[in-house]
């Protein structure tokens, strides 16, 4: 990618649910699947799809395990994800400042 266009936003994050996931994880660092589902008011299927997109981009790491006998999916933000989120916010802020 040559030249960085401040008006163009990272597609991997650009979407209400994916932005919500990234924002929440930027603060919490890690969250359970059900916790994300609750705070973002998302359905299970929808959240799974968007988490997979973020995982493919390398922005989150999904760890599946068990808590007792119940399956537990935990999502962690990666350093690359944190950087991408910071840059996304930078672009978004620049856009608001430049055009307002």
């Amino acid at each position, binding site marked *: 990618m040559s030249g960085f266009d401040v008006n163009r936003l990272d*597609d991997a994050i650009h979407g209400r649910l994916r*932005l919500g996931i990234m924002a929440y994880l930027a603060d919490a660092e*890690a969250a*359970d699947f059900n*916790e994300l589902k*609750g705070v973002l008011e998302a359905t299970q299927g929808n959240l799974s799809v968007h988490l997979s997109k973020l995982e493919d*981009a390398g922005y989150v790491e999904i760890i599946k395990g068990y808590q007792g006998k119940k399956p537990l999916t935990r999502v962690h933000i990666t350093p690359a994800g944190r*950087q991408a989120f910071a840059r996304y916010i930078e672009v978004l*802020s620049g856009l*608001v400042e430049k055009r307002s």
Partner: protein
Amino acid sequence: MGRVFFKPRVAEPADLAFARSFAGEGPRAQASAGLVFFWAGLLYGLQTLVYAAIEAGWVKVAPPFGLWLAIGPTLPFLGVIAYVAWRERKGKGGVATRALTASYTSAGLLNLIIAVTFGWLAISRQSTTIWLLYPIVICAMQGAVWYAASLIRRKLWLGVVSAGWFVTTLALTVLMTQVAAYLFCLGVALLALMAAPGYAMRQSSPREREPETLRTEKSVDTGSDTDPQAAREALAFIKALVDRGEQVQLSGGVLLLSGGLLYGLQCLLHGLDMSGSLRLGALGHLINGILPTLLFLIVVGVVLWRDRHKTHANAGSRAINAAFGGVGLANLFMNLVFGYAAFTQKLWLIWMLYPISLCALMGAGWYVAAVAQRKLWPALVCAGWFATAVLLAWRVETPEYLLILSGALVLLMAVPGYLLVRSDAGQRA
């Protein structure tokens, strides 16, 4: 032009400022805490090891150097604190980051309260034992802080550090009569469990803070345009998601309510007996000593069973409940420490220091709640607990001591517990 997929709320300048600061606040706060821990652990760890060497007779220090050794580490450390405070003056974290930073800060506040109260009592009673208990309380508090951090950040190594501090708490309690070994153990703990983790935190955070590197390292598709209105709404959405203190809920209202009432009544009866207003007698003392704990343990058992599958709704709630969990854990260790020390030293005054530590611990817990929730009433409860700790130190070994403690348990534990129970019931309805 981009789609508007956010709730139609127009962002204010505050949203913009928050979002800009928020994105890098987690690593920045971690780096700052790491810096403070590193220098505190290094300076005070080395100081303690020198004191251990002096106590063991390996080193002799002439009087002017003794003064420099005593105050030497504090001067540069105050410089570090001032630098971090200046650097963090505009930091705006989300609720979880705020709670974690507050947990670290609360350890500093507790240190101040315990240093003042135990220091004053040690000087006024000419007691080295009281002064030796001060680092033990701080070790338990460090255990509580790292325990909370491990639950908030969900990292195992933070839990290992916490366990290390609790082990140190017990080791120092056993070593109180062998001062050189006690100081050596404390010095090593400060280096291994404060300086080393602080260094690790500091080293790991910059790697997460350099957005410039990603642009060349990883090519990502940045294809979407958006309009300023959608961008404003996105910023407002982010702030609403991570900054709302009112979403943060503290559990355990029933425990606070029952604990405050039971132990408040227990202290009141003991206080009235000490002041001569009431005669409990031997059987009365026995019942008053055991029954509240028995009843409280039943309540704890019922609540733990009832909430065994309960999970916290958001990271902020998890954070402040983790902080109070740490307080509970530290309280358990304090109970053992002061009980053991009072029994082995045959000194009732030592047991009277336990409620002072408990009050300071409760103040630290409510400080985290106040910062995370951004509400006035937890801040007032926090101030109340810290003030009670100082008052108790002032009135120790007098009948007023137990009456003050009784009042604090009802006003600062049972009443907030009742408010939390009501708030919980209101949300369920």
